[in-house]
């Protein structure tokens, strides 16, 4: 999974309350949790499956729980976190709907980030007759872990169907905030969501 750049960290950090309890799903080497601990006094856990990332988290002094996200979050109590983060992992999750429901069960809010498949460079790849390969989507079609790529429009429709309320959205490209034509010009989407009514 691609690592996020600092602009993404800052965007996420501003949505994480001071001293928040955070669950970072697919936490990689624990860099984001470390960042949130330093910036927001956040505590909590990262969830990760890859052995090398687990070791990196232990080295970083980040609480990491080794488990397969696909097996669900049944080990976590309802509303036990202020914020559940799924950064650049949504597109690799198989049971997407279950994952989002579970995130909003264990967390009061969730922050979801994913590479925007509708980004103009990706569209150009498709126009030229090829699957996109870019910094945010660095894989070839045959070796990609990404099974559920989507655009901003797709994700927002999905939230609507699921009854998930979008509280805030930030769209970035190369670290810059994109406000005009985000589904075309943004390469990375960051959403703050909660269970809706």
């Amino acid at each position, binding site marked *: 999974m691609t690592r996020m750049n600092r602009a993404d960290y800052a965007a996420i950090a501003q949505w994480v309350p001071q001293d928040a309890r955070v669950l970072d799903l697919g936490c990689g080497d624990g860099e984001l949790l470390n960042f949130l601990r330093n910036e927001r006094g956040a*505590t909590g856990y990262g969830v990760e499956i890859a*052995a090398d990332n*687990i*070791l990196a988290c*232990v080295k970083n002094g980040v609480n*990491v729980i080794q488990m397969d996200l696909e097996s669900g979050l049944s*080990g976590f109590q309802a509303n036990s976190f202020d914020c559940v983060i799924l950064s650049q992992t949504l597109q690799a999750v198989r049971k997407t709907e279950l994952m989002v429901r579970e995130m909003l069960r264990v967390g009061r809010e969730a922050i979801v980030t994913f590479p925007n498949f509708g980004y103009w460079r990706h569209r150009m790849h498709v126009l030229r007759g090829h699957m996109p390969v870019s910094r945010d989507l660095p894989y070839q079609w045959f070796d990609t872990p990404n099974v559920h790529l989507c655009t901003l429009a797709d994700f927002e429709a999905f939230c609507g169907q699921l009854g998930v309320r979008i509280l805030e959205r930030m769209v970035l490209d190369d670290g810059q905030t994109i406000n005009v034509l985000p589904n075309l010009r943004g390469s990375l989407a960051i959403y703050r969501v909660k269970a809706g009514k």
Partner: protein
Amino acid sequence: MPNDLNTSYNSIGIVTPQVARFDTSFRFKSGAVLDGFQLMYETYGTLNATRSNAVLVCHALNASHHVAGQYNDDPKSIGWWDNMVGPGKPIDTNRFFVVGVNNLGGCHGSTGPASIDPRTGKPFGSSFPVVTVDDWVAAQAMLADHLGVERWAAVMGGSLGGMQALQWTIAFPQRIRHALIIAAAPKLSAQNIAFNEVARQAITTDPDFHGGDFYAHGVIPTRGLRLARMLGHITYLSDDAMMEKFGRVLREGVVGFHFDVDFEIESYLRHQADKFAESFDANTYLRITKALDYFDPAHEHGGNLSAALSNAKASYLIMSFTSDWRFSPGRSKEIVQALMDKKHTVSYVEVDAPHGHDAFLMDNPHYHGCVAAYMDNVAKEVAL
């Protein structure tokens, strides 16, 4: 040359066990009382001036205080966790002061059923109290006092040793910074207890057991001990590991149409059984298996493990092994979940290893790497 051997193993080298004598009475959880007792222990590394670098290593069913290094007179006497504890090893004795202790009721020098009861001048035998994990931890705390250790930087153990580390965080929350709980469980399952019961029956039905007072008869219940050890050993290995190591290899190349050893696995089990029966006390075996069976810190909290852990202050590293079916990863996850429910500081590592329960004793770069990384942070925390 023992010393050359040490260098090549990067071992702590020659070690010498010590005895701590306690002349105060000790009340067991069962209510039984000992007027005094001794604990056999070893230490590796140096206790620093602030006494902040002490690590207690708890042993499981059949090990002892001899965790690392070797004895002067026996180059084969390498400690049971020598790959974990030593200079430059995951528990680095250049930084930490490591303590191994033979538990109360043991048979490696600490007061146990084979010790002489001062009231009778004869071995305790059947009269030695049934011990619990709580009792062991209470006795270990007395040893900590004896050594001047107010607070352990870490208490660690595998299997039953991990249960002691867990119990430390519950019984003495102020006296332990970190618990490393490896291949353990928060309590035994019915299947676990069933295995223990078969082992105990093997011992207690051995005609040489004499109700536990076999010492006076000049015999030991070798048959029972051998069976208990064989059974236990099967549960420590995975099916795959056993198949990998022994397969269906025949000792003589052909089957013998007899009931002696045909297969290598039979030979191996017999060898392990013989070794064990020579060195282990049957009464201790009974008591340790009972301690396992009785361990259930959640019991006093209505079966709620997280409630049992509500006063704990330690940080935890919980580790399990994928092929361990005696205490499967799911059992470790029960501990992890209870800790997370109470918002404790915990990391959980599930090591991909084929060896079964015994994986906690084996070399595994990822396993040892995680322990080393964790202990590196512990060292920083206690200002080493």
